């Protein structure tokens, strides 16, 4: 797959992604710069799903027949791959629907622990605090707002600096003895900012708070080792890392998962069921009720293999080079303002910007006519946009299959949009 370790052979990679060969509006080739929303999928991932259905389809963790055993092996094999990918133990990887569900799983575990008198680590009482940041995707914001509303706890947040970094000067003041959990993104889906999660986790742990990192935009794009990162929980989605929809991951430290009540209950997660009450299996099964998504797990396992084959350091280096190119190219266009850090230091490959005098929807529409697919709007990070003083933005995101020529196509398209709408250049 990759003949030069540490360097991506992008042409070879692109050949693995059938969709990149198609044309879009006006017969233009597809320039896909929306991997932050969802990545494209290589044939290896599609084949893994298809071959599961063709050869092994059966319900995992049930049945005494051969196919059932094979399905279980596929499912648990995918778990082992994901665990190795992030440096976790196999039992610390819970399959969820996506990152959003993974975060909600923790938020509702805290709710449930509060109601049922569960572990004090998770009980949230009036006066307790949850600390988040203004930079969060709604998926790592709304569940904590809701938890606070249900429990009477107070939601606090770290603010964002004008250049799109987290305001950390008063971190020690913001994390108090009442802070139950700190939830922070590991890479902003808008500005690409990579906050110092390790430092934040250390400060939180000193005060006895739990730490959850939203890794939806980091695990697909950079090497992540949960031990080095120091977060207690990590949430990410398969579909943003070359894998299928419908499968995501919650990593949780073993001792914490052990103490956590389940979110969803039903089959597959129980130990003994009597009419008077039930007991539950240990993690991770406790958090995976119902027949599991084995084909999706097989696809995610193949995606992890694919990324591991490329090498995550090489993936990160490739994206850094594209991001540096994009920041340079956009800076050169009069009337374009980049949101967030304007260097690649502690910054990933999400580049959001505004074009003076042209609404993001209109920028996106004109780019689409040229075959360039970007995201427009607030990218599920409304408070962050407010903090940066913009109503909405246009966002380009990069991945393993993107090229420097595509960055140029983006810059050309922005200039075209400016001319078309008669904006100041």
């Amino acid at each position: 797959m990759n003949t030069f370790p540490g360097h991506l052979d992008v042409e070879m990679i692109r050949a693995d992604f059938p969709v990149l060969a198609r044309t879009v509006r006006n017969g233009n080739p597809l320039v896909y710069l929306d991997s932050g929303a969802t990545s494209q999928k290589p044939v290896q991932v599609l084949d893994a799903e298809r071959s599961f259905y063709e050869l092994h389809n059966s319900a995992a963790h049930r049945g005494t027949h051969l196919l059932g055993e094979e399905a279980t092996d596929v499912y648990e094999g995918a778990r082992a791959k994901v665990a190795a990918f992030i440096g976790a133990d196999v039992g610390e990887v819970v399959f969820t629907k996506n990152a959003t569900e993974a975060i909600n799983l923790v938020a509702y575990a805290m709710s449930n622990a509060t109601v049922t008198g569960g572990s004090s680590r998770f009980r949230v009482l009036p006066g307790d605090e949850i600390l988040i940041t203004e930079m969060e995707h709604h998926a790592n914001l709304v569940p904590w707002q809701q938890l606070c509303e249900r429990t009477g706890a107070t939601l606090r947040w770290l603010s964002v600096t004008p250049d799109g970094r987290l305001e950390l000067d008063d971190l020690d003041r913001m994390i108090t003895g009442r802070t139950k959990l700190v939830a922070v993104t590991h890479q902003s889906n808008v500005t690409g900012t990579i906050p110092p999660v390790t430092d934040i986790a250390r400060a939180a742990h000193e005060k006895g708070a739990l730490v959850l990192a939203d890794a939806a935009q980091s695990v697909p794009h950079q090497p992540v080792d949960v031990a080095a990162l120091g977060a207690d929980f990590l949430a990410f989605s398969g579909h943003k890392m070359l894998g299928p929809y419908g499968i995501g991951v919650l990593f949780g430290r073993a001792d914490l998962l052990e103490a956590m009540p389940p979110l969803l209950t039903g089959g597959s997660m129980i130990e003994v069921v009597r009419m008077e009450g039930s007991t539950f299996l240990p993690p991770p099964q406790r958090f995976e009720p119902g027949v599991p998504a084995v084909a999706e797990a097989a696809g995610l396992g193949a995606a992890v293999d694919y990324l591991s084959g490329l090498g995550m350091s090489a993936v990160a280096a490739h994206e850094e080079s594209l991001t540096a190119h994009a920041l340079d190219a956009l800076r050169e266009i009069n009337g374009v303002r980049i949101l967030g850090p304007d260097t690649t230091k502690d910054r990933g490959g999400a580049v959001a910007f505004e074009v003076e005098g042209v609404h993001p929807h209109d920028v996106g529409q004109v780019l689409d006519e040229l075959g360039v697919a970007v995201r427009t709007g607030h990218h599920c990070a409304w408070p962050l946009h407010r903090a940066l003083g913009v109503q909405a933005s246009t966002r380009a995101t990069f991945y393993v299959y993107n090229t420097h020529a595509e960055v140029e196509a983006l810059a050309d398209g922005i200039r075209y949009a400016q001319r078309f709408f008669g904006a100041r250049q």
Partner: protein
Amino acid sequence: MQPESMYQQIILDHYRNPHHKGLREPFDTEVHHVNPVCGDEMTLRVTLKDVDGEPVVEDISYDALGCSISQASASVMSDLVIGRPVAEAMTISQAFLGLMQSKGEGSPDEGLLEDAVAFAGVSKYPARIKCALLGWMAWKDATAKALEVGR
């Protein structure tokens, strides 16, 4: 490259020089509508008057943050609706909604929709239909509320 298929000259003209924009007093009702996909916002005020027992749109004023499609559509809407009996304006509104739901296949009634036929191309782009409807939906909402108050 053919962005003109959506961005007809009429739309660009209204976008650059929107008609009836700005909030005015007095007014009967005010509504605030948001497009949750992009965060576009519109505050719109309606003033009705009674002419021979029939409600007529005396004025619409609005303030909005949004894309060219939503801005131009609100401008065209205000041109079409101000001065008309509410019942007639509702008919135009229904016709515009129908055009937006036509997936590019509609044959709009130019006599009824006037400049609003320029938005026919928008109906081919599902992501943008909400933009074109933002002003119309705000107007309908504000008018319904005004009729309720007047009753």
